[in-house]
């Protein structure tokens, strides 16, 4: 490998990037759009769930219960419903996501046996929201029950006993406020890097074919490895710039806590960038049309990164076969690393395993990419 030739290829590629601003557009617009659309659009925080109530008793106790729900920030102001027919209609058309039915014998049962039940009809279409809504409803009820107990105990003049037999004191680590943005945004950085990286290099060889400059390239003394390095270097620079933009947006705009070190981030980002640039390069070598190369590169990077990297959908909840497939997705390791660096502040030693996987991945791809380019015209 001669440095002089590598430099020549790199200089030529830089000139091409500067003169054909399309690459620069990709490098700038995609990150900005993705960060904003995903950063704002992708949230799993459930608040103000549309709540309807059918109070069949309309007693003081039942109204007090409904007031508790109204006071919770997780539910919207309760909307009263008249009959069974209206419940069905409101759930059908989506006006209510959860309907609370207070039975007609609510306070009687509460006074007689000390135990009453409230029915919640939850729209299960969006299963995740439904699950969270039911959890919140249970929390409101348990606070209400605790209040009732306190009242009864005090009225009877007894000494204060227990309000709930077992009390869970929970502590959340790493993402203390359970903000979904804090775990989604680092994932988006990976998504942007994957898409942009592969898009940038997907054009580089296909362009030579389309423009007819392939013959010239083949007739030069450049060797495949030199070509690879020379072609990737400028895009590596662009990619690092993108990473800087995305990470700055994540920290300063979206306010995601950053607890790791910049060095860990830089090192792992470089590795991942190498992987995606090589993917784009490999696509570019094997497909001679620029459009087709872009499409294939997009298909290879976007879908797996969105679905199989653990970016939003937890990997350990997938069926074993799909979980096995995720090990082949390079973004899986990078997403893991990013989340750990951002939220846990993990360093190189704690992340040794995913970094090693990423490094092996990069090595294999570099070897494949260097071999893929052949100096022939057919």
């Amino acid at each position, binding site marked *: 490998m001669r440095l002089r030739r590598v430099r020549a290829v790199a200089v030529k590629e830089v000139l091409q990037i500067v003169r054909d601003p399309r690459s620069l*557009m990709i490098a700038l617009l995609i990150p900005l759009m*993705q960060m904003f*659309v*995903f950063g*704002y659009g992708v949230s*799993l*925080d*459930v*608040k103000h769930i549309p709540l309807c109530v059918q109070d069949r008793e309309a007693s003081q106790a039942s109204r007090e*219960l409904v007031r508790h729900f109204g006071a919770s920030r997780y539910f919207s102001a309760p909307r009263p419903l008249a009959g069974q027919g209206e419940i069905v209609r409101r*759930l*059908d*058309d989506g006006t209510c996501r959860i309907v609370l039915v207070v039975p007609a014998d609510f306070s009687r049962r*509460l006074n007689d046996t*000390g*135990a*009453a*039940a*409230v*029915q*919640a*009809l939850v729209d299960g*279409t969006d*299963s*995740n929201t*439904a699950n*969270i809504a*039911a*959890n919140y409803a*249970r*929390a409101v*009820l348990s606070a209400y*029950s605790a209040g009732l*107990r306190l009242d009864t105990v005090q009225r009877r003049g*007894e000494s204060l*006993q*227990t309000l709930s037999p*077992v009390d*869970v*004191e*929970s*502590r959340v*680590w*790493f993402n203390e406020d*359970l903000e*979904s943005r*804090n*775990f989604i945004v680092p994932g988006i950085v990976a998504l942007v890097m994957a898409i942009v990286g592969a898009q940038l290099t997907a054009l580089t060889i296909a362009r030579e074919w389309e423009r007819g400059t392939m013959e010239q390239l083949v007739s030069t003394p450049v060797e495949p490895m030199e070509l690879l390095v020379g072609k990737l270097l400028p895009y590596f620079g662009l990619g690092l710039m993108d990473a800087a933009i995305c990470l700055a947006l994540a920290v300063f705009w979206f306010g995601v806590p950053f607890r790791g070190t910049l060095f860990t981030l830089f090192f792992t980002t470089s590795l991942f960038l190498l992987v995606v640039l090589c993917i784009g390069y490999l696509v570019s070598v094997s497909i001679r049309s620029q*459009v087709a190369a*872009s499409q294939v590169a997009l*298909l290879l990077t976007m*879908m797996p990164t969105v*679905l199989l990297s653990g970016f939003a959908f*937890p990997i*350990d*909840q997938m*069926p074993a076969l*799909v979980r096995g497939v995720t090990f082949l997705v390079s973004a899986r390791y990078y997403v893991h690393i990013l*989340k750990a660096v951002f*939220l846990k502040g993990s360093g190189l030693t704690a992340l040794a395993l995913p970094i090693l996987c990423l490094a092996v991945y990069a090595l294999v791809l570099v070897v494949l990419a260097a071999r893929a380019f052949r100096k022939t015209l057919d």
Partner: protein
Amino acid sequence: MFGRILQLLIKELLQFRRDRSARFRLLIPPVIQMLVFGYAATFEVFDVSTAILDQDRTQESRALTAAFVHSSRFRVTLSAATRQQLRDAVERSDAQVGLVIPPGFAELLRKGQTSPVQAVVDGTNSNTALIALGYVGQIAGTFGQDYAQDLARRTGRARGRPLVSVSLEERYWYNPNLNSRWFFVPGVIGSVLLITIVNLSAFAIVREREVGTLEQIMVTPIRPVEFLIGKTLPFFLIGLVEVAITTTVGMLWFQVPFRGSFLVLLAGTSLFLLCVLALGLLISTLCATQQQAFATNFFVLNPMFILSGFSFPIASMPEFLQWLTYLDPLRYFLVIIRATFLKGVGMEILWHQMLALAAIAFGLLAVAVLRFRKSLD
């Protein structure tokens, strides 16, 4: 007029049959997306890896541990011996939940006092953490209630009198087991349709322009409107076939129930396809090359997909984005397709969505046709 449209239709279908890459684009991505989304996209929480530190070592603490072990929600991966071990397990992501039963747990319970249990949760994935915490509370709560009742029966003393409590009996309608697949699979049908049809139609016209055959066609007696109908009709048919295929896969392979009427779905799909085709047409009038069309598609389709409520609830977005979602035809189609699949409702409820789709289709078509005629001059 119909003769000419028919001629063009036949030409298009022939071209499509001979174009291997178009067939690839039509068949492979939908099937892969269906399978991957169907299996990978899940927000369910089962088998959460859990570390338990039992410092009490009594019958009661073992019973509480057993309640976690036997729950399908948790998988106890580690019985920690020290607090440090438990912390390390959560720190290293070996366990997502760490549970500490402190010494004196049983003693407090027997006295009828509140007995604390500590839970440490890895909040990195906030959604999983939130749901897992809910389950921890549920299991501990049930255990406590049962214990208190049991104590009351055994001792018969005042302090063991059953605690006043209001419980929740929840019923999940439309999706009783909260299967995420039932939520995602109908959504995939809509988004796959959007992506493939916009791509196909935008590329079809841009290609003619790029190759130069658009001019050839324009010198034939065909009128622009006839050309547009003949050019888009095949994609309309292809879209319907695609919905039929993906719906069948969803029903037979993923076992998602279809409770509504196929006619309502057909009506919704037709309106949605009109929007999508108009969008493809509009993009094709804006782009001179396929490369431009590719980039434009990316920039248009990506936000449409995210803002549709496909996997992330619209209600959780900031307000200005929520307003933007009203312009997204996929938003309405997802409501229609999920409602016909799971809720089984018909026009009496879905007419809002149908009307919105019709309005968007009309607006987009008008702009697209006007621009297309201008681009020919």
